[in-house]
């Protein structure tokens, strides 16, 4: 038994099987190929019958059963027969294949829309734990500090107003400033609940405020920063939401949530919120969006979403 797997570069290596054409590629190939099938079949039928007809004519001429003009007449007759019989069949067939193709495409589109809607509904839900905890804090504050309680009701109302209507809108309509408003109402609530254990700042250039930005993703990053960075930290913390325009490889928006909390610890993560964000980004932008989360050496955590500017890939 060899001790440990030694990894080497490719050398003296003989392939046995190649999996380069993956399942997905094959499926896409079949799908795009199907429309051409009837044409190919028609061409095949045309050629085969042409050869067969020529052979018959040559045989007949050799046995002098027909006159010298027969091949010309025969060619005409043959064309008429082929076109009359095969063309309508091929056209009908093509139409049927085309229709099936269309059905598949619209089915895929429907599935995509459903997935989109499901994620949207999922995200628009107010987490019950958050709501009940906020109400518990509010109830406590009613006696302790009426002004604070009032501020909290206002912040809660702002937050609910910002989050709830998202379900009715289509996702593409949301802008970065909408998303920042949601984050701010949430942060205001948390500042009250955690009694000023953290402060926050927003640093977003004016020009980016009206750029399309997918709903509730930024909020997930902010919630994470509070839950995993600020809350476990002893002492005061700070969260900063930043956005800027990146010019590398086509213009894109880089939105970051930076906190000086306890940071990430190595191991296995179960972040379902982040998984949702990742899935949604893939659904909307494919390869063109990046979600990343890291802890720099100086501590804290940086979560970022990079999406194409002006939502060029947004569907």
């Amino acid at each position, binding site marked *: 038994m060899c001790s440990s*797997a030694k990894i080497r570069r490719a050398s003296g290596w003989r392939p*046995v099987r190649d999996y380069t054409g993956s399942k997905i590629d094959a499926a896409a190939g079949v799908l795009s190929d199907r429309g051409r099938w009837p044409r190919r079949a028609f061409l095949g039928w045309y050629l085969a019958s042409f050869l067969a007809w020529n052979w018959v004519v040559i045989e007949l001429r050799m046995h002098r059963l027909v006159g010298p003009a027969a091949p010309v007449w025969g060619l005409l007759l043959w064309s008429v027969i082929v076109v009359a019989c095969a063309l309508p069949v091929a056209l009908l067939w093509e139409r049927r294949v085309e229709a099936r193709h269309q059905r598949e495409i619209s089915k895929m589109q429907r599935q995509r829309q459903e997935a989109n809607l499901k994620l949207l509904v999922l995200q628009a839900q107010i987490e019950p734990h958050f709501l*009940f905890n906020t109400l518990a804090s509010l109830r406590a*504050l009613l006696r302790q500090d009426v002004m604070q309680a009032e501020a909290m009701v206002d912040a809660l109302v702002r937050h609910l107003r910002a989050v709830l209507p998202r379900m009715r809108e289509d996702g593409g309509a949301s802008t970065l400033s909408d998303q920042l408003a949601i984050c701010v109402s949430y942060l205001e609530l948390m500042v009250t609940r955690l009694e000023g254990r953290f402060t926050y700042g927003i640093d977003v250039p004016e020009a980016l405020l009206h750029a399309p930005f997918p709903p509730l993703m930024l909020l997930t990053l902010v919630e994470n920063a509070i839950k995993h960075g600020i809350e476990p930290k002893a002492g005061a913390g700070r969260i900063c939401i930043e956005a800027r325009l990146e010019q590398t490889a086509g213009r894109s928006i880089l939105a970051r949530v930076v906190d000086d909390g306890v940071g990430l610890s*190595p*191991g*296995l993560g179960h972040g379902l919120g982040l998984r949702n964000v990742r899935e949604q980004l893939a659904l909307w932008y494919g390869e063109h969006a990046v979600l990343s989360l890291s802890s720099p050496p100086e501590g804290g955590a940086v979560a970022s979403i990079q999406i194409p500017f002006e939502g060029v890939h947004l569907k």
Partner: protein
Amino acid sequence: MRPSALIAEDEAPQRRELCRLLASRWPQLQIVAECADGLTAIAALQAHRPTVAFLDIRMAGASGLEVAQQACKMAHVVFITAYEQHAIEAFEVGALDYLLKPIVAERLDATLRRLRTRLSDTPKDIDSIIDSIRQGFRSARSTDIPWITASLGSTIKLIATEDVLFFQADEGITRVVTPLEQAIIRTPLKDLLPGLHPDMFWQIHRSVIVRVSAIRALGRNELGRLEIALHGSAEILPVSQAFQWRFRGM
């Protein structure tokens, strides 16, 4: 002897409110510790040995459930939760005391009445019930690990599991390799394996787990041993005898 209580709740307004409620509903109860996180609560438990412990479930440091396991047999535990459906069901089944947030006076009165009658008894052993609740929390989360938090030099980075090409164990550390970078975790492969989807990741060697969709080709080296090549990496991974069955019939 006057009964004493510990309160662990990470949000200050709620903590103060509970103190106020307790002071008005049970004046004899002496509040010996008010803790804002789980770790302080564990320390305070050892220091003050209170008769009753009011523990919020979701707290930084250590969860209320973890604190309760430390408090076991020492104090009567009352859990406080905003919305942990699974835990609430388990509390009902195990006849454990719990309060729902926001805490309402009538419910608190009922809990305090029960506590008073039990004060002279030794606290119930709730270790196994809590174990099963924590188990439930773990399985309520999806069993697949969506993220790996790995070190890249002095930076720690979150890597999506589906981006990983392969994991390779080497002398106590595990290399996590993606098309863009390679990072390091301290989780051994055997702990990693249960969290990976069995159709997405295959173990192909005692020290290698590979993402199936990253496999580009299967080959043999000069010695006739099976190896695989990957999409997105020039590295060649060995397939040991014991795992060759995976590639039969592919």
